[in-house]
Each structure stands twice: as structure tokens, then as C-alpha cells.
């Protein structure tokens, strides 16, 4: 069953999109990830213009992160103050990311930059996850517990503008969270992702927040940053396809339900290794496309995207 997407201006198979949404939703429910960094490359492989893929994907991230944030809100595992500070950086990052996106579009290099950033992040995160899950599988077999090095006080404590975050039991400078928020906001605008895969490790290892508030707080700030990114993509690039977004959200919401349930029953470490393999494969594929000689070195670029 085909449906014509009004903004992407192409017909797609409804079932394909729903299945993709459901699969990514399943993985996101299972691993507690937004899934944006899996969905955007898949949409691009499907032939959706990269700008539309990124713009539309941000609406899907809004849906899944609202679900996540509400779950954590009821568990009271959100540090609103820290979330707010991250959000300040996130808003600035999102706005600057959108302008970077526009500039790169005008230069005709946006597709390249999206691919490059994805190759970089997918391979780094895929490799890290792979190493970690293989280590965990080994540890489970051998019975040895992987030890984590205790943190010594870092340069972060020397920074000014300190603030007390009661929920996180922290007294740190607001500069690192603002910078982290800014970085993730920029990535969100360029990659169409929530950025949980950056912000969560940053909160744990850089800001040293307690793990029980990390995920909820990241969901909280992702909701608002991706919402802003979505609106900005619609206003600045006319790149949000509401029909595509709707299909992705439907698939994603349904998939996530099963993902959450499946996560309780299935061997998590093996699945994590599988996810890592998927990330590495997508990264490899994107990287391969960048280095192999294209079939036609000439291509047509839309000049003025339908003003």
C-alpha cells in the first residue's frame, strides 16, 4: 500500500514505514534509547531527502521521549534544575545547529555532513557498546565483575558559576551542563536525534550525576530540545513531513510497548551486542557510500526548496 508524502514529495510503502517505526520503537523500548540515530539513516537509505529525514525524525523523538519523561516523572527520577540548565544549552545548540544546517544546505554539503557525523558516531558508539557487552558476556560466564575505576576530582570542580543541584546531590559549575546541552542540541538539529547516547554518558562520567536521575533528566531535556528542533526545521527548511512523522510515531509507539516487555525476558547483554552490531553495520554502509566511487559523479541539487 503506497502513500504519497506531501513534503518529501515521493510515494512510500505504508507497511515498510510502519514496520521500520515498529522495529526501531522495539529497540528503543528495549534499550531505552530514542532510536533517532537508527531511524534517520534508514529513512535516507529509503530515498527520503536527508533534510526531510532529519526534520521529520525529530517529531518521532518528541513522541518517544514524552513517553519516557512521563514514566520517569511518576517515579520522580527527574532533576528539573539540572534539566533546565541543560535545556538552556540545548536551546542555543538547537538554534545554532539549524543555522549550520541551512548554511550547509546552501553550500550543497548537508548530505555529506549528515553522513560523516553518522559514520563517526555510529562507529564510535557501536564499537564502545560492542566492547562493553562482550566484556559483560565474558564476565557473566567467568563470574568476574568488571570493575569501574573510582572518579577522582576533575578539572570541572575548578570552574566558576557553581550551583547546587539537590536532586542530583551535586554542587558544580553550570558551564559543563550548558556545554553538554549545547553540543547535544546542535547534534539534534543536524542528525534528527534526541542525543541520549551522548548526554547520558556525559551526565554519568562528566557531571557525575547519580544514575537513577540520569535517564529521566535526559528525557526531560530531549522533549523540549527536539520539539524546538522540529518547529525550527519546519520554519526554516520546510522539512517536516507530517504524514511520514505520523506513520513513524504510530509504528514507534506500538513497537516500544513490546520492546519494554521483551527487555524483561530476553538476555540483555547478547541483545546489546546485537544492537552494537547493527550500529556498526549502518555506520559501515554509510561510510562505504562515502568512499566508493559513485555511479554518477554528477548529481542534481534542488536550488530553492519550494519557496
Amino acid at each position, binding site marked *: 500500500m503506497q502513500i504519497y508524502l*506531501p513534503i518529501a514529495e515521493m510515494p512510500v510503502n505504508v507497511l515498510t514505514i510502519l514496520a521500520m517505526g515498529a522495529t526501531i520503537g522495539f529497540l528503543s523500548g528495549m534499550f531505552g534509547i530514542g532510536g533517532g540515530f537508527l531511524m534517520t539513516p534508514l529513512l535516507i537509505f529509503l530515498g527520503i531527502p536527508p533534510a526531510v529525514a532529519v526534520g521529520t525524525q525529530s517529531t518521532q523523538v518528541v513522541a518517544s521521549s514524552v513517553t519516557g519523561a512521563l514514566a520517569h516523572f511518576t517515579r520522580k527520577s527527574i532533576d528539573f534544575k539540572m534539566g533546565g540548565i541543560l535545556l538552556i544549552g540545548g536551546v542555543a545548540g538547537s538554534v545554532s545547529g539549524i543555522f549550520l544546517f541551512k548554511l550547509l544546505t546552501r553550500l550543497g554539503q548537508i548530505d*555529506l555532513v549528515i553522513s560523516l557525523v553518522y559514520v563517526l558516531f555510529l562507529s564510535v558508539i557501536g564499537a564502545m557498546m560492542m566492547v562493553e557487552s562482550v566484556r559483560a558476556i565474558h564476565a557473566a560466564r567467568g563470574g568476574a565483575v568488571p570493575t569501574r575505576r573510582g572518579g577522582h576530582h576533575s578539572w570541572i570542580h575548578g570552574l566558576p558559576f557553581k550551583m547546587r543541584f539537590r536532586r542530583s546531590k551535586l554542587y558544580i559549575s553550570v558551564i559543563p551542563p550548558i556545554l553538554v546541552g549545547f553540543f547535544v542540541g546542535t547534534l539534534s538539529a543536524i542528525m534528527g536525534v534526541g542525543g541520549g547516547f551522548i548526554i547520558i554518558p556525559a551526565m554519568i562520567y562528566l557531571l557525575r550525576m547519580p544514575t537513577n536521575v540520569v535517564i529521566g533528566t535526559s528525557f526531560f531535556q530531549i522533549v523540549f530540545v527536539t520539539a524546538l528542533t*522540529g*518547529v525550527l526545521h519546519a520554519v526554516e527548511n520546510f522539512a517536516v513531513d507530517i504524514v511520514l512523522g505520523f506513520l513513524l510515531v504510530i509504528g514507534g*509507539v506500538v513497537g516500544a*510497548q513490546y520492546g519494554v516487555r521483551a527487555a524483561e525476558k530476553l538476555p540483555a547483554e547478547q541483545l546489546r551486542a546485537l544492537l552494537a552490531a547493527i550500529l556498526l553495520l549502518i555506520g559501515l554502509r554509510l561510510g562505504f557510500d562515502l568512499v566508493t566511487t*559513485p555511479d554518477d559523479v*554528477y548529481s542534481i*541539487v534542488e536550488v530553492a526548496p*519550494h519557496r
Partner: protein
Amino acid sequence: MIGSLKYSIALALAAALLAAAGAARADQLVTDLSEHQIAIRSNFTGTQILLFGAVEARTPGTRALNRDVVVVVQGPNAPAMVRRKDRVAGIWVNHDSVTYPAAPGYYAIASTRPLEVTMTPETRQALRIGIENVDLGTPEARAIDGTPQVLQPEQENAFWKALIRNRQRERLYANVPGGVTFLGQTLFRATVDIPANVPVGLYTAKVYLFQDGEVIDTISSPLYIDKRGIERFIYRMAHSDPFLYGLLAVLGAAFAGWLASAIMGRP
């Protein structure tokens, strides 16, 4: 008296005109399109337009031997930028570009026989039949950083060929010899494929009648391709009121997320 003289002069003039017309174009075209409007709705996956017509013989008795019909369907002109990728540090990067200010978004030819058989290259050029004979405007070459540059004619030619090749691959430029078929002596029909990725706008379907390699009649009819229904509504709103549109998209997504958690929250 004077009135009747005037009358007879007018009559003679009309007869002379008719005779002249008859000499200039022995035969005349009558054509119509199966539809003058193509609606892009949510189920649009491309379509086919049917053009049918007849050659009205003005000089009965003459047998139409070397008679050909050529149908050209052309879409709205728009700037098209062609970019060449070059290897930079092992990665293929969009490099030089050439922008053609008035490239037709769609250009299809259907003909009874291959164009090379029907007419000389000079005729094709004079009538601007065939995408390679269409004026795309003055090309503008730029380097990777956007600064204007001057290209060698053969380099520029490569860009021009690439534009046509890329559009042909997307089925936006097509040439279908045999796409027009005669049903008997006078009736003919032509089918032209409209792929799903066509640009919207005003199209023209121009029909040429050739006799022995010379054009003896042409007729053109308009064709509108436009989004309709929900497709049109969404597209319009996204462009005329992008802030509201974006807000709706995001709020709708947030609502879906809330709905999911509301359903999930109830065990």
C-alpha cells in the same frame, strides 16, 4: 451595388485565404488529452496521460505516406543545479557546480518513429524538439566555495549531459519512439508516463504533425499537475504557515507520546 461588390471582394479574399491555407497545410490536427488536470493525492504513484487525435485531411485523395506525429509534454521551468563530486581526502564531496536557470522539470517526447528518421537535426533544432535542443538559460558555474568560475566548453558540456542523464534516470526526461500509434489512416493515440516524482505546475502538451520531414501543423494544450486534497492542504500549510505547522507536528507527536504512556500506565 456597392454592397454586393464588397461582398464579392470579401468572398474572393476568403477563397484566396482558404486556398493559401490549403496549400500551406494540407492536413490539420485535432487533438485532446484524456485529462487536463492531474491530481496528486495521497495514493499518487505516478500516472499515464493519454493524448488522442486525428489528422483531418484537407486534400482528400492524397495518401499520407510519410506522415509523423510527435508529442512533446513539457513541465514548468525551474533552476537546476548540477554538482560534480570530487575525491577530497578519500571522500566523495560535492565540488564544482553549474546552475541552469530554466531547466524544464519534466520533458517527454513520444513519436511515431524515431526522431532521427522523422526529421533532420536542423529541423529539430529550429523547432526545439528534444531536450538537447531546449534552451536552459545561461549556465552559471561556481567553484566549491560558491565563487563564480569559467569552465572549459567540454567541461560545461559534461555538466549539461549530466543534467539530462540524471533526469532521464529519474524518468523525468524521456523519449519514447513508437509512443504515438496510428489507428488506421487518421486517428492516433499517444501515451506519456508521468512518474511519481513530477514537479507540480503548468504543463503543455504540444503535438506536431510532420509530412515528409516538414512540420505542417502544431497544436498545444495545457495540462495542470497539482496536489489535491489532504496533500495540498498539508503542503500549503507547511509553506504558508510553517510555525503553526511545525507546532502542530510537534504537539501531535507529544500527544501520541502521552497517549502511549497513558495506555501503558494502566496495567
